[in-house]
């Protein structure tokens, strides 16, 4: 019986393999897409149909039908690979020889990797704080003004575009040309207008890191603004009124009422952006390719794993990335607990 099923599957596979794997023409690609969705719907439908008989089917089968696919996918695609990568990080570049902690030692002692770690630290300090600060200031400034909606949309829009697109936008701003030629990059044109020499924004170390970081701040500020704006609107009116009666104005109001009231939201925003920042590699890759001392852990992971072919080192960098995320998460959970206790 089971042999038969196996035979059928392999027969079906041979028949459809070319169609399923080698889509080259537009029509073929679209057809494949439709087939994939249909196939998925049929499989899920079959599972649901099988468990759709209350009283006849035991509870655990129903549970399996609902949660099974997700648990299976997560086990296969997240849990197992994560453990596997951790294991592989103790091996050499092609996974043939156990070398203990050597990859980690290299990562923390070799100068080129130390620069990578330093840059990552810089990113994870600057992006969350500045993006949150700008988002907060802007949210407060445009709150309840006539242009609130439009003003928010302006800041918000960068969130919709890809990091690659944003990197191209900013590379164009930073574009450098010899002082003898007319500038095409806005940043350098501004310098020229001010009577200064054009500057190699993306090449001159170590400040070039800051100019890359600015791109992610530009993207994340919209996220911060949205969450914080909602939090500000949720501050009870009586608190604001009482403070106004007490004579609080402008900066004082901001400092003593707004910020403390939205503290939990602030923590969430900062930690969320910090976690995003750690994983971002698109900006570095598109703008400098990790050259000129701008690489970060996420970019170095890609370079080591898929360009240099050093699987062991790549795995170690991925694990390091994971290890840096953990304190951020712990801080997040702690702060949330704290704020719940206060309430």
């Amino acid at each position, binding site marked *: 019986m089971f042999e038969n099923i196996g035979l059928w599957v392999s027969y079906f596979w041979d028949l459809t393999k070319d169609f399923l794997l080698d889509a080259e023409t537009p029509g073929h*690609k679209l057809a494949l897409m439709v087939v994939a969705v249909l196939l998925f719907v049929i499989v899920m439908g079959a599972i649901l149909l099988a468990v759709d008989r209350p009283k006849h089917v035991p*509870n655990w089968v129903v549970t399996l039908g609902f949660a099974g696919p997700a648990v299976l996918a997560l086990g296969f695609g997240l849990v197992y690979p994560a453990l596997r990568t951790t294991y592989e990080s103790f091996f050499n570049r092609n996974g043939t020889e156990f070398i203990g902690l050597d990859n980690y030692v290299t990562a923390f002692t070799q100068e080129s990797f130390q620069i990578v770690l330093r840059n990552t630290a810089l990113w994870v300090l600057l992006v969350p704080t500045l993006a949150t600060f700008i988002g907060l200031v802007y949210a407060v400034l445009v709150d309840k003004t*006539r242009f609130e909606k439009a003003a928010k949309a302006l800041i918000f829009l960068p969130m919709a575009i890809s990091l690659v697109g944003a990197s191209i936008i900013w590379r164009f701003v930073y574009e450098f040309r010899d002082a003898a030629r007319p500038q095409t990059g806005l940043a350098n044109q501004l310098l020229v207008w001010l009577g200064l020499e054009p500057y190699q924004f993306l090449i001159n170390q170590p400040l070039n890191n800051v100019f890359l970081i600015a791109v992610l701040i530009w993207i994340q500020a919209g996220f911060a603004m949205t969450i914080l704006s909602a939090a500000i609107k949720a501050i009870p009116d009586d608190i604001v009124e009482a403070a106004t009666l007490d004579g609080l104005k402008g900066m004082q109001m901001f400092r003593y009422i707004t910020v403390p009231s939205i503290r939990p939201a602030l923590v969430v925003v900062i930690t969320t952006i910090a976690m995003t920042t750690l994983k971002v590699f698109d900006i570095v890759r598109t703008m400098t390719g990790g050259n000129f001392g701008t690489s970060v852990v996420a970019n170095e992971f890609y370079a080591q794993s898929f360009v240099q072919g050093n699987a062991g080192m790549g795995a170690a960098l991925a694990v390091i990335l994971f290890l840096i995320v953990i304190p951020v998460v712990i801080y997040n959970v702690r702060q949330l607990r704290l704020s719940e206790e206060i309430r």
Partner: protein
Amino acid sequence: MTTNPAPPQAFDKKTRGEVDGGAPPGMGKGIDQRADKARKKLSSPWASGIAIVIAILWTVPTFGLFVTSFRPVQDIRANGWWNFFGSPSVTLDNYRSVLFEGDQPLAQYVLNSVVVTIPAVIIPISIALLAAYAFAWIDFKGRSVLFVAVFALQIIPIQITMIPLLTQYVQWDLAGSFWAVWLSHSIFALPLAIFLLHNFMKDIPPSLVEAARVDGAGHVQIFFRVLMPLLVPAVAAFAIFQFLWVWNDLLVALVFGSQQQVSPLTVRLATLAGDRGETWHLLSSGAFVAMVVPVVVFLALQRYFVRGLLAGSVKG
């Protein structure tokens, strides 16, 4: 509001250009106060100054590239985009050449992006909906432990999964096909999707579910008849998230689908950007080709997106 929306809107439009005295009789006190406050805010020069500076910094870079994408190649090479306003000359040539000319026209990658994105949105949402239902409304042993585990998986950086996953795909002969990309995107989306949809499902009054159960409905019926209609906004919210994420993704596409017949727009753009030399006429138009779809989706469905954002991070 829904019963009589016209008058306030008209009032709003009328007063926008005027200075004062446009307040019609009988308008609510709230609107007056709001207007007062707005005027107060705007009269503080520092506040509006800072807001304007931020708004300019956030729009001018994009605007500059946008203008550039419509300038003739020789103009782009000759001087900066701000010169456009001195001697405007508009062309669509950049778009034509980036989309249809050369040995790797961008149009092909637009198609790849569409083919990659649609299943990568539908599949994880469906799987996550079912799992979220199980975690919210089916009683089983170890439910809370399993849910916390799924929730915790959110913090795993996807980088850590990539080498073993790729090895697996190679073994299964899937590497370099759309399947590898679809599967990876679906898996990576699950933890957040399950968490978000679970939160929304928990907000549905238990009495509704109980009533259906008393009527003899099984879990499948409850799921489709009672919960799904109420979950449309939540599904929309996550669908937009996932759509933007997949469409804009570079890492997953590079690792699992870098072959020309599979790779999406972002991969091609990153390659274009990597080529040295002055190809700004292609880069600028290419960037906007890639941006137009997510921006339109985003603007059209912004309401859902914001709701999703708030549910995702504030409830945390």
